[in-house]
């Protein structure tokens, strides 16, 4: 999902994960209206949200951050297995598992935040601006990981400013402008759309 600042991308993610309650409208997921589910029960339904700015717990170690991610009753028995899986996805985290999350580099923090979200065993992963504040080379790594996670069968809904790169790892894309879907289509089609290219890809 792409779009200018203030289009409502982050808001949409926050509505999906229950951090904000919509005044009107419903949100259906697997036949259930999510707006009636208490927010802390959403992870158990398979929805995980990596919030903007990652929001790690800086004073906890990497492994403790993962542990909080596995807090839900249903996730706890899988803690060890999922942690090891996260460590194979992100070997850097394994090296730093006893380090305080606040001391990690930006890229490592993003990995840790994604890892924490994976600990609940989600079916859909909401990523909010995973590339924000990261060096270009690290951004590429993060998107590489997104591609990898998708290959494992997870649905990823990603909000990005970095349109050019994100269109390379996703199937479908939506352009959100002032709260409405202004355009949608396959990533390839949108990447070829002249209007999109002008507005978001800096191509004239």
């Amino acid at each position: 999902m792409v779009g200018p600042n203030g289009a409502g991308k982050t808001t949409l993610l926050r509505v999906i994960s229950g951090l904000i309650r919509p005044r009107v409208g419903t949100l259906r997921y697997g036949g259930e209206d999510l707006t009636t589910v208490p927010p802390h029960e959403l992870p158990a339904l398979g929805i995980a949200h990596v919030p903007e700015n990652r929001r790690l717990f800086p004073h906890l170690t990497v492994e403790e951050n993962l542990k909080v991610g596995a807090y839900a009753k249903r996730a706890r028995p899988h803690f060890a297995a999922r942690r090891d899986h996260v460590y194979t996805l992100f070997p850097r985290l394994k090296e730093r598992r006893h380090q305080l999350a606040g001391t990690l580099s930006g890229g490592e923090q993003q990995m840790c935040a994604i890892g924490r979200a994976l600990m609940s065993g989600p079916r859909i992963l909401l990523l909010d601006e995973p590339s924000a504040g990261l060096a270009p080379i690290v951004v590429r790594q993060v998107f590489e990981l997104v591609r990898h996670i998708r290959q494992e069968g997870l649905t990823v809904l990603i909000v990005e400013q970095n349109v050019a790169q994100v269109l390379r790892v996703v199937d479908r894309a939506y352009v959100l402008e002032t709260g409405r879907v202004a355009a949608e289509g396959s990533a390839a089609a949108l990447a070829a759309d002249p209007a999109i290219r002008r507005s978001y890809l800096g191509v004239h």
Partner: protein
Amino acid sequence: MDPFLLEALLNGVLLGGVFALPVLGLNLVFGVVDVIWLCYAELVMVGMYTVWFLHTQAGWPLGLAFAVCLPAIAVLGLLLHLLVVRPLLGRPPINQVLATGGVLFVLQGSATLVFSTDFRSLGVEMPPMEMGEVFVSGTKLAAFVAALLGAAALWAFLKFTYVGTAIRAIARDREVMPLMGVDPRRIYLIASAVGGALAGLAACLLVVQLDMHPFVGLSFGPITFMICVMGGLGNMLGGFLAAFLMGLIVSTGGFWWNTEMSYVVAFLFFILVIFLRPRGLFAR
């Protein structure tokens, strides 16, 4: 070294252990729920009366009275949260503090009604122990060891359990907690119960050292708040260390001047700390 000074230092450490438990409990509740329980020392007072009543009036063995005191005060902490604090969440902090101040009066008044203002004492004393040149009260030493065990148990709970880890996490960022599948309201309840249990444990350790009366909370309540702030509100380790620092100040102050002046010095030190290091002695 002067054996009396040595004794004062040793007593300071022992006193620090006694301060440490209520400080940890108060800090836990503040860190998680973000509300100061102004009546914390009064929860301890109720615990002291519980032990005293069960032991001297109902004739229960002391160990059993202790074992009942802990969960009883934990329940009191739960009730405090459910009846007073939860409805005030999101209100200005001063309103919350004043409401718990009201509970302080309620508990003092109830204790006065039930037990009168007479001084009560458990009348349990362990023989003093000789350590080199100095004598140490066996009761104080036992209480100190129990306080350390209590603190260690709390540490293990916070470090190794899911709930404990979530408690440490929520102190920093409560908004994202639902994303982790954590219901903050449940964590608040648990923290309040654990905070109450710590008050209950502190009561068990104080009841063997202090005479009790309904206003006994006022004798250690204020210094407990000050220690929490000195250590950095919500900072468990800072509070733990500050408890020992205050214990040393009070007890060596008592060595150089007298007990009362030592509290004056301790409180002045506190005011100075707030002015110079408002986030606590150990803030980075």
